């Protein structure tokens, strides 16, 4: 029961935080000048119509006072889920439709990268921990140190240059279109997937190695060995399960972060996803998009926070979140 109450409390607080952030964001954006772009009269009329629907503008073209705009925003956008037209980037298309169209690309690329990164990272980390202070460990640790330090876009450039330009294994940019599960699409996504995965692999390997070495030196493992278990048995049954307690939540974060993606990698490989859309919405001053995508990233951050805390309880039943001391 207390877990349920804890979840409820966390969700309520998250909703509050979301509301505050998005309100500030909305107010800051709406005090900026936002003229109807100079396009065809037909399109302009449609935009005015939509702005009236959103409650940002009166039918005669005058601006609604800011606080009333805000009230309308809460009513029509947050509750009514009308995010308005994209006025600069995609004329006459609803932001939310464009967003839904772009989301699968981001999710796919990031999901592939997680599927690659989590097992590889864990395996490397476990191997390094078992071979602690041998040359294998030093090799992995050095590689991990370099990978963690070097910014992800640097090895994205390296991959693009060597694998795409020099060796021509992959096309340079990700294919557009909606055939998500064809071989061509997968092949064109691979460079982006690898660039994304390298950083995560290094992160997981480092984390796993640190946790596992700590567990491997503990007394209960010595006890397990003296009981007569083999080294493999102690590692898998005792050490790994305990080491997973802090690792598992970070895997859960990864699963949520799949939605968010990486702005920089997506823009390097021209993945037609959410990340480049966000950057373009800022440079093109497409405010409806900006508010929608800011809301999206905020939600991802909040949900990830809750999921991480809850996943401690899933992996280790001894941890009861929210319980009193």
């Amino acid at each position: 029961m207390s877990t349920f109450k804890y979840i409820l409390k966390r969700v309520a607080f998250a909703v509050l935080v979301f509301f505050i952030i998005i309100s500030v964001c909305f107010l800051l954006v709406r005090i900026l000048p936002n003229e109807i772009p100079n396009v065809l009269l037909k399109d302009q009329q449609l935009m005015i119509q939509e702005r009236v629907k959103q409650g940002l503008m009166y039918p005669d073209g005058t601006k609604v006072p800011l606080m009333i705009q805000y009230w309308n925003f809460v009513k029509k956008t947050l509750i009514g889920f009308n995010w308005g037209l994209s006025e600069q980037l995609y004329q006459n298309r609803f932001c939310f439709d464009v967003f839904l169209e772009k989301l699968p690309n981001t999710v796919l690329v990031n999901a592939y990268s997680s599927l690659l990164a989590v097992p590889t990272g864990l395996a490397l980390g476990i191997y390094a921990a078992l071979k602690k202070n041998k040359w294998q460990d030093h090799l992995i640790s050095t590689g991990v140190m370099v990978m963690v330090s070097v910014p992800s876009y640097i090895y994205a450039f390296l991959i693009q240059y060597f694998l795409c330009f020099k060796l021509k294994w992959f096309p340079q940019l990700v294919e557009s279109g909606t055939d998500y599960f064809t071989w061509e699409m997968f092949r064109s996504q691979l460079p982006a997937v690898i660039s994304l995965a390298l950083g995560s692999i290094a992160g997981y390997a480092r984390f796993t190695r640190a946790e596992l070495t700590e567990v491997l030196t503990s007394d209960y493992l010595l006890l397990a060995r003296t009981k007569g278990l083999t080294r493999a048995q102690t590692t898998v049954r005792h050490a790994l399960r305990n080491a997973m307690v802090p690792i598992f939540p970070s895997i859960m974060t990864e699963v949520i972060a799949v939605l968010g993606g990486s702005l920089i990698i997506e823009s390097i490989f021209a993945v037609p996803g959410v990340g480049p859309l966000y950057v373009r919405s800022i440079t093109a001053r497409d405010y409806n998009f900006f508010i929608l995508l800011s809301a999206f990233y905020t939600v991802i951050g909040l949900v990830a926070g809750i999921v991480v805390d809850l996943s401690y309880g899933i992996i280790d039943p001894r941890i009861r979140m929210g319980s009193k001391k």
Partner: protein
Amino acid sequence: MMKQNNIPKIPAEKFQFVGDEGRLHDQKMDTKQLSYFRDAFNRFCKNKSSVTAAIIILLLVMYAVFVPIFCTTNYAAALTDTTYLQYTKLLPRNKLCVTLGWDFWDGCSDMTISEDQYNAYRATMQETGEPVIKEVYNQFANSDGKLRYDVRVDSYLANGYAYLTLTADEYKDIQQWQLENGIQVIYPAVTDGAATNADIWYAANRKGAAKLDKDGNFVHDYKTFGNDGDYNSLRVEGDPGIEDPESPKRFRYANVAGTSEAMSFKCRVFKNAYFQYRYGHEASFLFGTTNMGQDILTRLANAARFSLLFAVCVAAINLTLGAVIGAIEGYYGGMVDMLMERFIDILSRVPFMVVASLFQLHLAAKVGPVVSMLFAFILTGWIGMAGTTRMQFYRYKGQEYVLASRVLGASDWRIMFRHIFPNSLGTIITSSVLVIPGVIFSESSLTYLGIVNLDSSAMTSVGTMLANAKGFLSTYPHIILFPALFISLLEISFNLFGNGLRDAFNPSLRGAED
């Protein structure tokens, strides 16, 4: 019964100290006492990789500080001197490698070119006598039946010619310089005065491909009116110079426009020779030039200077702010702490990209992109530091020495910053070093994505350089190589250095995270 106060007088010499023969004293220290920092420093020096990292950081910082001061190559002049736009995408050239004759870092590159391109290079070679094509490796027919050449091309010479419009004084000055140095800068004008491609001095079709005569030679297209015959010598020796003495007011080396008082001379100049005339030394860029003709060596140093300075500023402000806020939270606790913590809960959930872009949208026009980016970094950057300091205060504020100090009448401020705060000094120094690579990374990401635009002739950042160079990744990888190399080296060494510091200041944490 003996009365207690009726003790007979005992002589003093009867008294004796108990155990006097082996009296115990604190022994004086044989060794020199080590201060906290000395101890940490000694421990740090034992970590070889961290010391190496510290040296590399020092070198990179020195590069960022001193190169813009001492190397005034084209970067400093770029504001006033637009001729730099003529020297774009030159490859890195190290003079040492050229003198040693290495095929590496010499400003040349191997490429496969079409026959038309090959002819264009050959024409430049014929007119200037400079080895544009250093070596022809192979000649083969492509699948479409056209000839291809595998060649090694000198990018500085292949840069070709440009049309410059000079005044009479400048024109004379160049002529004078040519005679003194024996290097030809200005090449004969061609018939077509409106031609835009200065490379073409020969008969060519509309696309610029050379039309050769039947022996395979170029047919020149020089403006040969007036007295001909002296075109047999293209070199500067024996050249009459500015005006043809036989027929005055006829210029063979320039297309002249304007009145006789203010004439302008449109000349074909060979860029590599013109560089030497203009700047007094041969064109040679250690890191090459960008697509805008900026020298990467100095431009990168400026970018690095900005990135480092910015990161240090952000780290200093955030640590101070975080330390003060964390101290207040931790020391006073209770309601203050609770309210602050909830505030931090909300603030820390705002995505950094959203903060950065909102600040850009609002403030960039008023206070400039750098200051608004600084605000974005400060808004949420202090939270981590505040958390660390708060923990330290919770740990130490109940200890006896703090109580003693309070009893002696010390003020809250004094207790906070004289007695409790120094305990967390090691942590602060460590995190200040570990904050810097993070800031540099975020800053370069923001500028790379173009959310913050820092590209101007006076200032740049590493991220902006990378963003400008990414379009040339396949054709001119050297433009992206040096900024990328710099930032990778900086990030790796800062992380190593920071880890070394952490181990030195908190030996108990050694190896916890690496």
